[in-house]
């Protein structure tokens, strides 16, 4: 039953391929056929890679046949298009890289392929990962599989939509201020951002280097754990990657929360989100308690400064990171009589409005005379925010809070940039502190004027390097509540 099979988790598919109940090639073919059937309505992928997928799948089958034990054998993988995969187009959702072919493979991607995953394609994202809805992509529209009139979230919206619609079992995303967790919440998925430095950034096209972190979007916590276990760990190619052993998280998945203290953040009172969401979050906290956790109130008094702090640091780094897109060596070039004019025309034509806005903000924040007032102060605020978490974690093992302030919104609903920036209100503080955090499905809410109930995500956050605890607890919650199973994506009438 192919239709059933494409809905399998990564763990199930890997088991089947490992035990040779099915070949990786068959899984790839079925997945590619399904992608062909639904892509027209979703737009998850910017590039589908049938030839590469088949070649990898064949190779996986050979490796399995030769006795290799591959944790992700034959698992269909969707890669956000800001990560390099050799010989494939890596666009970052931008016109400036629309035709750029990566000459090398990102470490995280390479490790997943080594573990047996099969790359199905490269997914849409907000241009250079700057956005929360995928609407800032210059190359395509991606729709939410639970309501095609709504955004999938962003910036890793393509990977989220792909996984939600069974176009892959694992979607790789990158999270700078919430870009995995928010689309995870919007698409009824587990969206997991590991501790900063746990997963190599080598080959991830930088947006804000001190915040960017690669992580998985999956339909189950177990799949998130398997993916993380396969790609985390020190990489000599990334000076910020951490040389500290990674203990397998898949072995630490729990069934209850006994003995854990879970902090509920006083400043993140869900009453402000309306009765519906407030009810969902209160129920979620109650479920945590029923699973054996002790709820304690904690305070993050400086969390409110997260968004303004983030919107100085991230654009400052981005303004420098994106300088290299100058038309000299690769990517788009608009010819001109002299090199300065060539720079101007290339960048004017190649970058979209949000990228330009952030380059301008960042350039200003770093300018002589403003540096101390903006960048230095933002770094100080960042230290204070991290200090808040330190104090909170002295009183609890995990923090639970909303992942987003609303469910997936309609296209063009957040046309004012500041309202879009506020979408990351609950996820930015953890990013600034470098902490591991995830969103896990916690309920459904039908937005005002909406046609369908939309998924809501609960955010869990752990101290630095406590991924085992984080995924373990999320697993217990997922197993006990099963919110993710409450509704299937809108794929009726689609023949795989």
């Amino acid at each position: 039953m192919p239709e059933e099979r494409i809905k399998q988790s990564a763990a199930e598919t890997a088991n089947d391929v490992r035990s040779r109940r099915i070949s990786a090639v068959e899984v790839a073919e079925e997945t590619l056929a399904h992608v062909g059937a639904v892509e027209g309505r979703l737009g998850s992928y910017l590039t589908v890679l049938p030839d590469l997928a088949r070649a990898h799948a064949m190779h996986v089958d050979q490796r399995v046949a030769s006795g290799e034990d591959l944790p992700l054998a034959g698992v269909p993988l969707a890669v956000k298009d800001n990560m390099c995969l050799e010989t494939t187009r890596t666009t970052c959702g931008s016109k400036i890289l629309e035709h750029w072919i990566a000459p090398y493979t990102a470490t995280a991607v390479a490790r997943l392929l080594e573990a047996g995953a099969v790359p199905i394609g490269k997914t849409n994202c907000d241009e250079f990962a700057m956005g929360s809805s995928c609407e800032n992509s210059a190359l395509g529209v991606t729709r939410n599989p639970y309501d095609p009139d709504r955004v999938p979230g962003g910036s890793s919206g393509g990977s989220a939509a792909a996984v939600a619609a069974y176009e892959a079992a694992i979607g790789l995303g990158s999270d700078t201020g919430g870009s995995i967790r928010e689309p995870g919440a919007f698409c009824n998925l587990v969206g997991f951002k590991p501790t900063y430095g746990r997963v190599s950034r080598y080959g991830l096209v930088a947006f804000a280097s001190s915040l960017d972190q690669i992580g998985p979007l999956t339909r189950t916590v177990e799949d998130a754990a398997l993916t993380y276990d396969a790609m985390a760990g020190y990489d000599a190619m990334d000076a910020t990657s951490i040389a500290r052993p990674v203990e397998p998280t898949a072995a630490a998945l729990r069934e209850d929360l006994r003995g854990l203290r879970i902090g509920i953040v006083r400043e993140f009172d869900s009453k402000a989100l309306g009765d519906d969401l407030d009810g969902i979050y209160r129920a979620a906290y109650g479920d945590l308690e029923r699973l054996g956790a002790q709820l304690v109130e904690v305070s993050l008094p400086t969390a409110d400064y997260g968004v303004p702090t983030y919107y100085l640091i991230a654009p400052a780094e981005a303004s420098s990171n994106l300088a290299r897109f100058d038309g000299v060596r690769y990517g788009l070039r608009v010819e001109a009589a002299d090199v300065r004019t060539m720079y101007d025309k290339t960048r004017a034509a190649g970058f979209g409005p949000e990228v330009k806005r952030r380059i301008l903000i960042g350039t200003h924040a770093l300018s002589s005379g403003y540096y101390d007032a903006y960048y230095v102060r933002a770094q100080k605020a960042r230290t204070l925010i991290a200090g808040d978490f330190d104090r909170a974690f002295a009183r609890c093992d995990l923090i639970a809070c909303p992942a987003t302030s609303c469910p997936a919104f309609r296209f063009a609903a957040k046309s004012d940039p500041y309202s879009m920036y506020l979408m990351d209100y609950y996820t930015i503080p953890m990013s600034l502190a470098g902490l591991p955090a995830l969103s896990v499905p916690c309920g459904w809410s039908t937005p005002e004027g909406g046609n369908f109930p939309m998924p809501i995500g609960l955010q869990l956050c752990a101290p630095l390097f406590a991924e085992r605890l984080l995924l373990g607890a999320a697993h217990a919650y997922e197993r006990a509540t099963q919110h993710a199973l409450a509704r299937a994506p809108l794929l009726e009438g689609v023949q795989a």
Partner: protein
Amino acid sequence: MSVSYEAVIGIECHVELKTVTKMFCGCLNEFGGEPNTKVCPICLGMPGALPVPNAKAIELMVTTGLAFGALIPAFSKFDRKNYFYPDMPKDYQISQYDMPLAQGGTVKYWLEDGTMKACRLTRIHLEEDTGKSTHAGSGDGRIAGSSYSLVDFNRAGVPLMECVSEPELHSAEEAVGYLESLRRTLLALGVSDVKMEEGSLRCDANVSVRAAGSSELGTKTEIKNMNSFRSVERAIESEIERQIALLNAGNRIVQETRGWDEINGVTHSMRSKEEAHDYRYFPDPDLVPLEVGRVDVERLQAGLPTLPWERFERYTREYGLGAKQATQLVENFELGRYYDRVVALSGNPQQSSNFVLGELSRLANETGTTVGDSSVSPDHLAELIALVETKRINSKIAKELLGRMWSGAGSPGAIVEREGLAQTSDLTTVERFVDDVLAANESVVAEYKRGKTNVAGFLVGQVMKASRGKADPAIVNELVTKKLSS
């Protein structure tokens, strides 16, 4: 016109470090090669590529700092210097802004007459080199009038050390003395090739003038495009003259960057301060702060060689060598080391210097080899010096012996022994030679007695010849004179 001026000069040097690989990637750090053959995603600034610092480069840089007595802080970091340039792949340069790897320090140097001087350093920091642009279609390789440009990134990412001096130099001669000493030191440390012609050493000079005795600094200009020490000297001289002429004419100096025009021997304006960049420095988030361990610092400190200026001071002050000789020995590192061993063995620095810089260097030049590679070992040379010192042989024999040692004859003592070449100081023996020569040259003796005393030299020569050079020339001289006057 009666005002006298003092020049104030500071020098900024860029030095490429001699590492196997580049600063932040695994590409080879080698001069030249086909364009864009020593490149990878990292040094080309490809999307997603990340820098990882070269530990060896940091070590060479710390070694350099220690050699100049700079402070090596426990904590340092890399910053990004942001500006757009086609040969800079990332459009920012990874450099160090406010926390360089080496702070302060002093370069000791000397002038041609041997006067020792010192110039303090502000800082030394580590950064990455850029690529190289070639402009085509303009005929002269300049950007003006060119139709397109080509970029070679082989040099991009090569570790580059920037060494900034305090404005404590006061003449072109001092500036060159400082540069020479810097160059010699970096060579002795083995941290760089320091070849100006290959660009592994590049320097700019900040030049200003002020009324002699004033403590305020005048407006400075920065001089670029100097491609040899000789052009540094000429450029600084020319710039000092230009500034003094301007001031004397009642004009003001404009703060600007000026290029040295080698052909016409003048500097010309390149850009004014108003066009200066805002580099928007900030700590590079791709790199973690650098922590230089005390243990490493102590290890590198202990491994420092004797520095060129230390050797110069020893040669001139302890050994009494002239500045020129001392400079020669310092300049030629291998020769200096050879010399040091000969001195250690012979205990005679002056004689050692005479032989090493004189006859031995002449033989080396003649045969196109080096003293170190010759078959004259320091032991044998020390032995030869001892033979001269104890008057067992005279200098003529010594020179002859050295020639034979150069050809592989071995120990000079053994040759002297074997061939009976020892100098004869025995009065009776020498007197016999003298008597024989005087008897055989009666007419010459008669000339002498008629007042033509300069023929004595001829007679002394004849005696030396008769003794086959072994007679002690001093004794011969004395006896000949005595006998002629009797």
